[in-house]
C-alpha cells in the first residue's frame, strides 16, 4: 500500500476513524506473540504448579495396583515439603551462600570495573575480554572444568599446595559450598562487571572534570562520585544474583559425583528435581517449586525495599 495516496483530503476523516481503531488494536497485535508464549511458558505452568501442589495421590495395594486416586489436599504437600529437613536446610544453605557469594562477587565486579575504567589501567580492552570470557561458558561445563581442579589426584592446584606443605580439600563437608561459590563467582563476576562498566561509561566527563578541579583523588572520586552513580547497576546485578542463587542447580549436581557431601537435595532446586524425577512425586515437587518462587520474590522485594529506603 502507498502512504501518500491515503493522505488525500477526502479519505482523511474515514482514515482518522480507522486510525482510532488501529490505535486500540495495534498494541495488542504487537504484544500478541509475546503474550501468547508468556502465557504458555509462565502463566500456565505456574497455574499447573499451583494446582498440582494442592493435589495428592493415594494408592491401594502394595504397588497401587488396586487403584490410584487423587484428591484435593489443601496444604498437605506444602506441609510435607516444609517438614523435609533437607529442603529447609537447602534454603538456609542458599541464603548463607547468597549473603557471602553475592556480596563477594558484586564487590569484586565493582572493583574490577573501577580499576578498568581508571586512567591507570593498561590494556583495559584485553582485561575486559578475559574477565568476561567465563560468562560464555555454561555452568555445567564450568563446573566440569573446575571439578578437575578440585579433585585430589587430578588437581595440579592441590599438588602444588602440597609441595608448600598446605593440604587443600576443596570437596570436604565444610569447603564444598565455597568451592561452588568460586565457580559461580568465576562465571558471573565478569558479566556483572560489564554491566557496571557500561554504567560507568554513562557518567558524563564534566563530572570528572569538576572533581579534578576540586582536587579529589581516585579513591575519593570512586567513593563519592562513581559508586553513587552506578547504584542502579549494582541493584540490578544484585537482584539477578539473588534470583540466580536460588536457581543453583547444575554446579552442585555435577559436583555431587565427586563430592560426597553434596547430596541430592543440596539446593532447593536440586531437591525439587529429585522429588519429581527420582521419587516420582510431582505434587510435592510442585509445592517446592512454588515455595522457591515465593522465596525469590520475597528476597527480591526485600532487597529493593531496603535499597529504595536508603536513597
Amino acid at each position, binding site marked *: 500500500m502507498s502512504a*501518500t495516496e491515503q493522505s488525500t483530503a477526502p479519505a482523511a476523516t474515514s482514515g482518522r476513524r480507522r486510525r482510532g481503531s488501529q490505535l486500540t488494536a495495534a*498494541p495488542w497485535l504487537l504484544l500478541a506473540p509475546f503474550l501468547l508464549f508468556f502465557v504458555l511458558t509462565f502463566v500456565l505452568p505456574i497455574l499447573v504448579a499451583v494446582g498440582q501442589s494442592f493435589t495428592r495421590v493415594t494408592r491401594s495395594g502394595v504397588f497401587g495396583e488396586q487403584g490410584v486416586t487423587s484428591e484435593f489436599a489443601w496444604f498437605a504437600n506444602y506441609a510435607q515439603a516444609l517438614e523435609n529437613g533437607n529442603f529447609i536446610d537447602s534454603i538456609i544453605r542458599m541464603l548463607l551462600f547468597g549473603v557471602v557469594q553475592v556480596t563477594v562477587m558484586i564487590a569484586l565486579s565493582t572493583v574490577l570495573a573501577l580499576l578498568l575504567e581508571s586512567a591507570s589501567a593498561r590494556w583495559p580492552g584485553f582485561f575486559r575480554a*578475559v574477565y568476561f570470557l567465563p*560468562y560464555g561458558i555454561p555452568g555445567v561445563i564450568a563446573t566440569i572444568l573446575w571439578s578437575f581442579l578440585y579433585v585430589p589426584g587430578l588437581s595440579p592446584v592441590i599438588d602444588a599446595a602440597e609441595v608448600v606443605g598446605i593440604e587443600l580439600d576443596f570437596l570436604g563437608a565444610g569447603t564444598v559450598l565455597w568451592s561452588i561459590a568460586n565457580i559461580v563467582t568465576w562465571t558471573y563476576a565478569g558479566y556483572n562487571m560489564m554491566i557496571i562498566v557500561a554504567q560507568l561509561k554513562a557518567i558524563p566527563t564534566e563530572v570528572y572534570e569538576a572533581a579534578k578541579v576540586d582536587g579529589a583523588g581516585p579513591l575519593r572520586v570512586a567513593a563519592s562520585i562513581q559508586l553513587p552513580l552506578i547504584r542502579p547497576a549494582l541493584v540490578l546485578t544484585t537482584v539477578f544474583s539473588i534470583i540466580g542463587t536460588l536457581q543453583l542447580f547444575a554446579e552442585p549436581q555435577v559436583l555431587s559425583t565427586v563430592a560426597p557431601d553434596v547430596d541430592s537435595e543440596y539446593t532447593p532446586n536440586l531437591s525439587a528435581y529429585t522429588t519429581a524425577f527420582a521419587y516420582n512425586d510431582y505434587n510435592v515437587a510442585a509445592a517446592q517449586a512454588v515455595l522457591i*518462587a515465593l522465596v525469590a520474590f520475597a528476597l527480591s522485594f526485600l532487597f529493593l525495599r531496603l535499597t529504595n529506603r536508603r536513597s
Partner: protein
Amino acid sequence: MSAATVTDSVASGGRNRRPGQSAGRSILVTAILLLVALYFLVPVYWVVVAATKTTEDLFATNGFWFGQTFALFANVREVVAYDGGIFLRWFANSVLYSGVGALLATYFAAAGGYALSRYQFRGRNLVFGTILGGVLVPGTATALPMFLLFSELGLANTYWSVLIPSVVSPFGLFLCRIYADASVSPSLLEAARLDGASELRIFHTVGLRILTPALVTVFLFQLVGIWNNYFLPLVMLADQDLYPITLGLNNWRSQTDRLPEFYELTTGGVLLSVIPLAIAMIVLQRFWRGGLTEGAVK
C-alpha cells in the same frame, strides 16, 4: 613495592598530572588486573593442557604441563567421530536453540516493549506488572510444571520443548520498554502516522531501527542465556539427538566413573566447546553495552 606505592599515590591525592606517580599506580593497577586475569584463565589453560593428554597421562602427570604423549589431535578426532559425530550434532542443536530462540525472543520483546511504551490502553499496567513478575520467577521453578504441560500437549522431548520457552524474555521486554520510553519520540511516530503508515509498519520501520542498540543487548543476553541453559533441556529432552552441548558433555562426563576413556572425550569436548564461545565473547563484549544501562539508570 606495593606499600610504598599505595601510600604514595594516596598522599599525592591522585593527581594524574605527575607522571612518576601515575606510572607507579599504573603498574600496580595493571599488576592487580593481571593477577585477576590469571584466575579467570587458569581453568581454561588447564583444559587446553588436559585435552592433549591420554587418560593415563591425565592422572600420572602434572596438570599444568603437557604429558609424555601429545594426543590432542587423536582426542579431537575421537570427540568428533564418537557415536557417528554426535558431538557435532549437539553443537548444531545448541546453535539452533540459541540462534533461533534469541532472534525470535528479541523480536517479540521489542514488539511488546514498544507497544507498552508507546501506546496508552486499558490493561497496560496489569500486563506490564505481570510480565515484570515473570522477570523475578526463577526459570527453574517453571520448568517442572512446564514439562507436565508439554507432556500433555505432546511437545515434551521435541525441539519445540526447548525452543518455545526460549523465545520468551520478560527481562528483554523490560529493557526494550524502558529504552523505547527514553529514545522513541512521540513526534517521530506522529510524523509517520501523518504519512499514513500503519501502526505495524511504523514499528517495523521506525521503532525497530531506533531500538537497535537495545535489541543487540537483548539478543546477546538471550543467546548466551539459552546456550548456557541446562535445567530446561535436562527436564524436557530424553532423546540424545536433541541434546544441546551442555547436556551432551555432561552425559560423557557422567560416564567417566564406569568408563575412564570418557575423560579424553570430556576434556576434548570441553575444549572444542569453549573455543568458539571464547572467541564469541571476546568479539561480542564491545556490543554489550547499549540498552542495558540506559534502561537501568532511568
